[in-house]
């Protein structure tokens, strides 16, 4: 027997509630100058496959249409909005403000994978040259939209994806270890230190092979066994990796000091007013240069300038969304322990979608979770 997915149908009362939240949020976004766009609910699989973090990807529902094209139900809307902007000829040289409302579809992460649908309304702000101002304007806009939905008792929890990157760049780690830690952070989020603790038990014995020797050995072995390299890989690729293989074992072997610092960083949380000073001390103590304190300080100033009540905003180093594209600010907004909105900065996404990885387009956005909001309003 095939079990029916827990699909969502709304009766008149529930639909009216959802519609009220959507209208209220979209009205605020429109007033702030965000133009309406309507990206398709169904998207070619590629645009998500290539950009989403692993944790999120497992939650995406892929299928084929009658022509054999691989499609998916959109699991989020930021990527389609950026894709749409690029298709419309957006070149990053100007500000582009867009709003949308619609459903996202995700498979439950419990392994059974039932399909769920939920409604969002959000904005994407591309090309804003002052990052702190743009970030603050998005947080302010999200709070204003929530207020329009009747939700004013909110708490903003924010993180800085750049802080983890700075930390990795500044610690004595190999590139291999950095890539691996970044991937694990994306996959495991705030449980990363526990996860590293568990695996540190195994102590590997690394062996280094000189590249020159690896080249000779690879050529000789391919020749002797009459093997042809397939998959477009060259003997040089294989030799490089053989020479480098010891590096992987070392990548698993994190110095005690690094694990200690990660624990310490993940324990950091502070009201936004104190966050910059706190992170400044943290990075100074471990001797790692970081732009985090400056970013947090600029963000705090911009939030105050935007008229946001900052007493309900906290910085928490553990905040990390599994989307895999945030590069700076990440935040979620809670009320009565329910998350009602989320968002962040994704400066690399537009360039990656355009096939130009080095192209940075400043971008920040947020989404309101309308089902959660409709469930809270009387």
């Amino acid at each position, binding site marked *: 027997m095939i079990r029916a997915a827990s699909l969502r149908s709304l009766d008149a009362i529930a639909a009216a509630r959802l519609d009220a939240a959507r209208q209220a949020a979209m009205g605020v976004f429109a007033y702030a100058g965000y133009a309406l766009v309507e990206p398709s609910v169904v998207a070619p699989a590629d645009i998500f496959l*290539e950009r989403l973090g*692993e944790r999120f990807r497992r939650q995406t529902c892929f299928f084929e249409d009658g022509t054999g094209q691989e499609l998916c139900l959109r699991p989020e809307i930021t990527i389609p909005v950026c894709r749409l902007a690029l298709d419309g000829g957006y070149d990053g040289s100007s500000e582009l403000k867009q709003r949308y409302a619609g459903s996202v579809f995700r498979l439950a992460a419990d392994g059974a994978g039932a399909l769920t649908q939920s409604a969002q309304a959000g904005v994407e702000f591309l090309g804003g040259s002052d990052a702190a101002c743009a970030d603050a304007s998005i947080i302010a806009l999200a709070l204003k939209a929530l207020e329009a939905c009747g939700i004013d008792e909110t708490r903003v929890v924010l993180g800085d994806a750049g802080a983890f990157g700075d930390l990795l760049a500044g610690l004595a780690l190999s590139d291999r270890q950095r*890539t691996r830690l970044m991937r694990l952070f994306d996959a495991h989020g705030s449980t990363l230190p526990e996860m590293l603790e568990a695996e540190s038990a195994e102590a590997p014995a690394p062996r280094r092979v000189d590249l020159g020797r690896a080249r000779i050995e690879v050529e000789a072995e391919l020749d002797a*066994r009459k093997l042809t390299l397939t998959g*477009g*890989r060259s003997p040089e*690729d*294989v030799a490089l*990796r*053989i020479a480098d293989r010891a590096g992987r074992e070392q990548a698993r072997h994190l110095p005690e000091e690094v694990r200690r610092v990660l624990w310490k960083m993940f324990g950091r949380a502070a009201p936004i007013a104190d966050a910059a000073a706190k992170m400044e001390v943290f990075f100074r103590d471990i001797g790692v240069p970081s732009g985090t304190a400056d970013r947090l300080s600029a963000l705090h100033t911009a939030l105050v300038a935007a008229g946001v009540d900052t007493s309900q905003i906290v910085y928490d180093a553990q905040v990390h969304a599994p989307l895999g594209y945030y590069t700076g600010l990440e935040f979620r907004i809670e009320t009565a322990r329910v998350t009602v909105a989320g968002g962040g900065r994704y400066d690399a996404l537009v360039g990656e979608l355009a096939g130009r990885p080095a192209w940075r387009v400043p971008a920040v956005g947020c989404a309101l979770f309308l089902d959660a909001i409709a469930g809270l309003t009387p």
Partner: protein
Amino acid sequence: MSEGIIAIPSKGRLKDECLALLARAGFAIAAPAERSYETTIPALPGVRVLLISAGEIAERIVRGDFHLGVTGMDVLRERQGVLAGVHRNIVEMVGEDGPVAVCPLGFGPARLVTAVPESWLDCAAMDDLREIADEIRARQHRPLRVATKYVRLTRAFFAQHLIADYRIVLSTGATEAAPASGLADMIVDITTSGATLKDNALKVLEDGKIFASEATLVLGPPGPLWQDMPGGIAQLTRAIAAAVHREGNAAGALAMVSGRVAA
């Protein structure tokens, strides 16, 4: 009392082994009429026997078309998207509300494995594969391509190993030829002796064995078919399990199923 339905493989070694097993269990089937895919068990009136392909048995037992079936765990797990080890002595529910695997039957062995070209001298384990996927992305600006017909199991297994950047190329026949022909870089496929892999210059990764599979006796999932329990089905389940010395499994599985009947 309603009639019971058992489905068994319609061709090849699986069919022969299955017929031999039924005979050993004391319930030999009557030879089906020419071109007929249905027959009976003379010693067990009230039970219909369908002869269909193992893949179709997996599909249809999940759908609830039969009480009892014999099929491979590989196709059953792929149908349900369930990644798990083989538990010889444990009655296993395949998927939530799914069919119940009563016991392995000792024939039709196969391993589902991850295999790469032997020429990839730098690739011995799944960790290597993840790095090669990164390398192919960086150097050739494309994802690693994996040929398989086990799409869901491949996705689940690769996710376990945190490999995200790859693309599945659906391959329903001669999958092992895919790397040489250029259709894909590597494969996930069933192998019995490993000889075909070797002939195609492929090697199995150290930690790339997804699971071992064999022909398995399966009871269908809860559904309209279980309004009442056809007596012949319980008897047949017990006899087949006894013939492979797994009487305990039959008792456990039947208890699970009668729980469903009661509910």
